[in-house]
């Protein structure tokens, strides 16, 4: 780890200001960033901790919308009961250490292509709220580790419309236990969504053909005969693009079944 300055602002405004400085880097739960620093793969001049900002905390459900403060840990999200599929997803992230430190805002800002939360956000049609604006999930995830966030922009909360039915099924990569493939399905007022994480070189994506099939018949049987394309899917020692494409089909069916 290289030496860096450390700031711990207590308000959002202070954080925005601190992040405006050259070489400043936001630190949420640190479950990706700290290991990266330890391996000397990043060299920020200043780490701006978001852990002390009250505005980023709290989880509430109102009017069919679950609002999750960006600094909520996975454990906290796992503990809410208004959106069970999201709680289930949070319970399956990493290990207790990761869940007690890692945050939803950190995960979404990082947009690891194998992370779980991007599937939940895209699969629910969530809105990512920042200090500057509101971004629909459909517009937010722009590629591998890339998002619509501008330099210095901070996620403040994530608003999930609570669907009538939803489920997340993750197939773990054997070593990291990140998603080799994870599929989040939901059926709500906005229609059916199928979001796939872990599989694509470009990060989380929606499986349009499955959504179309499920829109008229939300059942696993509606997916019979559908197969995801292996084009642009990840191939590595844990699975070929063809295997990942196959898993997308299997897991989508399982998710639909789990959603009931």
């Amino acid at each position, binding site marked *: 780890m290289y030496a860096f300055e450390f700031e711990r602002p207590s308000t959002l405004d202070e954080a925005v200001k601190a992040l405006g400085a050259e070489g400043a880097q936001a630190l949420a739960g640190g479950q990706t960033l700290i290991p990266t620093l330890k391996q000397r793969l990043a060299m920020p001049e200043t780490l701006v901790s978001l852990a002390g900002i009250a505005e980023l905390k709290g989880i509430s459900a109102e009017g069919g919308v679950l609002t999750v403060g960006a600094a909520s840990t996975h454990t906290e999200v796992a503990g809410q009961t208004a959106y069970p599929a999201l709680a289930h997803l949070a319970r399956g992230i990493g290990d207790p250490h990761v869940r007690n430190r890692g945050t939803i805002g950190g995960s979404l800002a990082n947009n690891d292509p194998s992370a779980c939360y991007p599937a939940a956000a895209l699969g629910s049609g969530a809105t990512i709220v920042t200090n500057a604006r509101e971004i629909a999930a459909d517009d937010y995830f722009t590629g591998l580790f890339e998002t619509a966030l501008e330099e210095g922009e901070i996620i403040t909360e994530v608003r999930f419309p609570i669907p009538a039915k939803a489920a997340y099924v993750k197939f773990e990569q054997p*070593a990291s236990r990140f998603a080799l493939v994870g599929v989040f399905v939901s059926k709500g007022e906005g229609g059916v969504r199928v979001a796939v994480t872990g599989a694509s070189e470009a990060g989380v994506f929606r499986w349009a053909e499955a959504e179309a099939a499920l829109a008229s018949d939300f059942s696993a049987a509606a997916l019979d005969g559908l197969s995801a394309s292996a084009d642009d899917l990840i191939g590595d020692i844990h*699975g070929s693009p063809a295997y990942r494409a196959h898993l997308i089909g299997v897991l989508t069916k399982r998710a639909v079944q789990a959603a009931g």
Partner: protein
Amino acid sequence: MPADGGIGAPNKRREDVRFLTGKGRYTDDINMRGQVYAAFLRSNVAHGRITSIDTSAAADMPGVIRVFTGADFEGIGGLPCGWQVTDRFGEVMQEPAHPVLAQGKVRHVGDPIAAVVAATAEQARDAVEAIEVEIEELPAVVDMKAALEEGAPKVHDDLTSNLCYDWGFVEENREAVNKAFEEAAHVTTLELRNQRLVANPMEPRVAIGDYAAHNDESTLYTTSQNPHVIRLLMGAFVLGIPEHKLRVVAPDVGGGFGSKIFHYAEEAFCTFAAKQIKRPVKWTSSRSEAFMTDAHGRDHVTKIELALDGDNNFAALRTETYANMGAYLSTFAPSVPTWLHGTLMAGNYRTPLIYVNVKAVFTNTVPVDAYRGAGRPEATFQLERVIDKAARELGVDPIALRRQNFITEFPYATPVAVEYDTGDYVATMDKLEEIADLAGFEKRLEESKARGKLRGLGVNCYIEACGIAPSHLVGQLGARAGLYESATVRVNATGGLVVMTGSHSHGQGHETAFPQVVAEMIGIDPNMIEIVHGDTANTPMGMGTYGSRSLAVGGSAIVRATEKIINKAKKIAAHLMEASEGDIELKDGQFTVAGTDKSVAWGDVTLAAYVPHNYPLEDIEPGLEETAFYDPNNFTYPAGAYACEVEVDPDTGKVTIERFAAADDFGNIVNPMIVSGQVHGGLGQGIGQALLEQAVYDENGQLLTGSYMDYAMPRADDVPFFAIDHSCATPCTHNPLGVKGCGEAGAIGSPPSVVNAVVDALQRAGKPVTHIDMPLSPARVWEAMNQ
């Protein structure tokens, strides 16, 4: 046994109190006055020529004391290899130099090029980044067969090729074996890979070099399984320090699994640098460094053929193996695919003719050496897989085929040099069938089917050879070491004992088990006995711990030394009771005179030994301290039978282990709880190999599995509750304890049954799958199902 926990008692491990409460004293816990820190610049390419190194900027960095390069080690020895194999043509193996820091070339990713010693570890790392090195990258060889092709890039320019040796065993049987294959009624052939593994002990390697100017003595604190071996190798062959001026200390060590047997460059570097700069020099491996510098394990590619006669008796066995040595010869690397592998190819079976060919190959990868089982897992895996395949081809029950060919009479001289002293393979198989509830398999199969899962059953046997010995034999086989073990038993005046053993505990539980042996012999509380190990300054010259040898060899040395103690104590007791020495009996810590009511306590005798007011000084010396060196006259041969039941998810290929049973014959058992723990750990490691672990290089020699993000370790939920049994004991006939060793059995015995079970599950589902290479990851199983 004494009521207070001698041989056979499941005493809780006394060392666990400090380990579990954070009070262990590991090498990294040692911090010396004036200590400074080393960091290494390591090659990031697999093969290249160093064209320039500029350390001037690094030398000017804050805190930097000195920067070392290969030039500082000119005239210093290289890391030695401890075993010389002679090939099938009578030529000795090719043995390349292994410099402490690279001399001209780098040969694997992680090869050390230079080192910085600085006031803090971070400063040392900073300065490493400031070293300017230019490397002309050369084509790398990673695949073993490609490495042997004409015109392949040579890992070592001064060798004739990348072939270390071409070993044949038993070479004289070669033609007879070939003839038997021509006459066979059935031949089963299997090609497989026993994949490369990383040992991954919980504690990474650490070395601290220290130099005392007042007496010109060097000390190395290191994470080693065998401090005396390191002292001899490093002192005599690398740094030229006589053993009386070199002390090696291996304090608490957090697991080794073989990877801490070997002498590593960082140990020599820290010892050397400390003397140069006159300050203690410490290096602590990061986990990333561990992946690319700790010796790896396994990495064999094998073709095995089994010939059977018309009655399904094994007629002959023939194997051809390519064994990866990596870029250099690690300390005992040449012995693993040869004498620890070829000699085990008979397994538990009467196969009259066996021929084993092994080509050891240099590649641009981390050196490969012994890893839990070392050669024996590779032998067991291929043998038990080919037998399973043969049974399926012949349409016979795999268990019945094994039983039909079991060795049933002992001693049994195999056609591959070793002689099994004892065993009962029928008994362990009977026991396995019972504890695995094989009779209930069909019912469980139906239950799995009802849940949409494919169920399979895999069974295998194993035999291993532990306590590698005797010294005169291994010397003939190329070992540049003796393989005895030592013990000094020091009795204090008030009756307590200190046992100094040359073996080393890095998780085995010596501090608990060894006192049980001595307590049993004397009849005292094991808490009166302390075990000292791991420091060349206060233990007799020993060979350390590996190959499941500690109790069989080290324990036997303790028995011999304790016998000497008891014999002398009886003389003293006889004197005290004015009786004849021959009439003295020792029981429950009391010396008695046969046929009388006279007695003296153990403590009275020990006090007399050190306060010899009333003492037979004319016959014996005062004091009560004895040393013994024990050199066994044979290996020990633990054996057993294992069964695995798996479920395969037909949609994803994911394998789950539903049941696992292990029936082992370890001979006599000193502490059954420790034995169970060893079996559990071994099974976990073997299952890890079968399902999860693999070290993978890309074609350029970059390690793709350099962290736990990609190298899959087994976790608690990857294994089921095990059904284990050690009751089928046939005591070893040639050591005083009748023990055989249990440390590696689980890792040796479990991979074949897992693979056999998965193949069984797929075949029951109508899939024409005869083999899948480990690890049986979901992707591989799915691909095999959908070929």
